């Protein structure tokens, strides 16, 4: 039995490994072709590059290309991603908390309004949204299109429903006694939220941040409408579109650009992965102990 089980597991490991190789194949293609010249990539797209030094040549070409403006695009992407993540998580957690802790018709209705956002597809609101942002500018002089704050407000609006929903589910499981005890200690309502609830919510914060980071960093349609392709403020996907969408396909440079576009988020998440995993794991136990201990 034991020997048989071992053989089965070895076979399964081999199958998994083969699938892994297949799934990693496109990454391999991107990496080897980023280090080829425009001639080499046409004649032979599947063998290893003759000179890896070409990679640096291509990277510096992309870096200095005025249609991509790599460093400024990465900068814009970082500002928009970080700005949106911070605001989405904190604002959604705040909303979810008051919605859970206030039992009234108003709070139920508002929660349902947020939930409706989960089924409204972006396509239904995208054209009127642009028109509405323009109306706001005409009425108040506050520019929303082609600005960072317009972009971030849009992400809060589209990101809030799912985040509120996730926080709502988790906050319901936090015992009310914890908050009552803090009230007795003289804590005000905002203090309760920022000093007691926020630390407990950390694992959900991590989940919401990861999900939204992947979405916002890679999003194309929303920024293409709010910021526009080829404008001053452009995110990485817009830059890629501006460069790769043209009729003449310089595949060697597109592959390098693709590599440079995907690298930041992969590197950041891979670097953060051990921390995130360790954190989620440790947090589960810490919270269990903390919540259990505090209301005994």
């Amino acid at each position, binding site marked *: 039995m034991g020997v048989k089980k071992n053989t089965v597991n070895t076979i399964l490991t081999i199958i998994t490994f083969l699938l892994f190789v297949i799934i990693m194949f496109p990454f391999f293609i991107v990496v080897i072709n980023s280090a080829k010249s425009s001639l080499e990539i046409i004649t032979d797209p599947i063998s290893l590059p003759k000179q890896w030094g070409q990679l640096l040549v291509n990277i510096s070409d992309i870096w200095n290309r005025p249609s991509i403006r790599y460093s400024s695009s990465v900068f814009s992407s970082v500002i928009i991603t970080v700005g949106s993540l911070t605001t989405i998580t904190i604002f959604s957690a705040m909303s979810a908390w008051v919605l859970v802790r206030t039992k009234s018709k108003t709070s139920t209705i508002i929660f349902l309004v947020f939930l409706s956002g989960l089924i409204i597809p972006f396509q239904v609101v995208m054209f009127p949204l642009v028109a509405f942002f323009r109306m706001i500018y005409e009425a108040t002089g506050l520019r929303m299109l082609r600005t960072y704050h317009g972009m971030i*407000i849009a992400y809060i609006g589209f990101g809030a429903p799912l985040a509120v929903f996730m926080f709502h589910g988790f906050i319901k499981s936090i015992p009310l006694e914890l908050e009552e005890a803090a009230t007795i200690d003289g804590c005000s309502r905002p203090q309760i939220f920022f000093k007691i609830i926020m630390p407990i919510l950390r694992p959900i914060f991590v989940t919401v941040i990861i999900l939204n980071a992947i979405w916002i960093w890679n999003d194309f349609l929303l920024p293409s409408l709010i910021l526009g392709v080829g404008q001053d403020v452009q995110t990485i996907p817009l830059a890629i579109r501006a460069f790769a969408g043209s009729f003449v396909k310089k595949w060697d440079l597109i592959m390098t650009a693709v590599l440079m576009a995907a690298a930041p988020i992969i590197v950041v998440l891979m670097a953060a992965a051990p921390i995130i995993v360790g954190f989620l794991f440790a947090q589960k136990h810490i919270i269990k102990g903390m919540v259990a201990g505090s209301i005994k």
Partner: protein
Amino acid sequence: MHTHPSYELKGKGKFPIREETKTFLLIHKKNPKNQTNHNPISNQNQVTTNKMTEGEGKRMNKKAKEKLVFWLFLVPALSSFILVVVVPFFMGVYYSMTDWTAVAGQQANWVGLGNYKNMFSDLAFRYSFLRTFLFTLLSVIAINAVALTLAFLVTREIRFKNFFRAGFFIPNLIGGLVLGYIWQFIFKSVVPSIGTLLGIEALEKVLILAEPNLALFGLIFAFTWQYAGYIMMIYVAALLNVPQELIEASQIDGANFIQRLRSITIPMIAQAFTITSFLTLVTSFKQYDIIVALTNGGPAAIYQGTTVNSTEMLAVHIYSVAFKYNNMAEGQARAIIFFIVLSVVSIGQVYYNKKKEVEM
């Protein structure tokens, strides 16, 4: 009376709550009689109680304060949501019944259901509808089949399973637009080269993105590559929750792999099926980024004597009607229909799956 450190800290707005709460609760539990005399926190408790009974005015004040906090905490998220989703949604419903052009200064005139009537007589729209359904159906099947297989593999006793799990998830970090270009290159250059290398002529000559059905297949392939790892994670979580005792008991009873799968594993992960089918269905139906970068709607096909774009799914179609053909109002009307169909289909699916869950 003792002066408690918390009194000094309170003024500065720094209140070590958790410690204090614990102390209070500990004392409260251990000797309930003592606390009234010796613990200053309980005095404060009395003060609060007194305050509450002092009069209507104070109580109203407290209620008003809570209401203020309620709205203050809601305002940032709720106002953004109203600004970018609720208001544009109702504007959209209105615009879909006008001849709206989105040009500044041009008045939108009421046309009733005209845009909707045009839509159903438009062959391009009908074709796009059918293709979207086909694409969604095939994607849901492909993604779930691949994801479930991967999930089964990485929950077995194999080596490096955490490494494999992470590896299968990585394609999900690549955005639709970027991966569309990657796969465009693979389908156009890499596949023929592999054909040459292996001496397979069919592979060498095939133009995947130039033939309507092959292009659709290419889209599904690229999309599955991206999304299966994400769905796998949901299946992994569900599979890890299947009680080991059940599996062991069935093994003792002599059940084989297929029997175990049908009678234990699948019913136990029924809830995950509801979630994964919902997610894959909605994501496939709304797919835009990959299509734009991989095929951009093409290649052309003939449908009932009209030239149509073979991979122009609804999300892309709506965009191109609005911008390419410069017909905002009609694009908006199609978006409304898109929303209604998506809601009906996805709610129907969840309802059906939930019923199945119970039966299982």
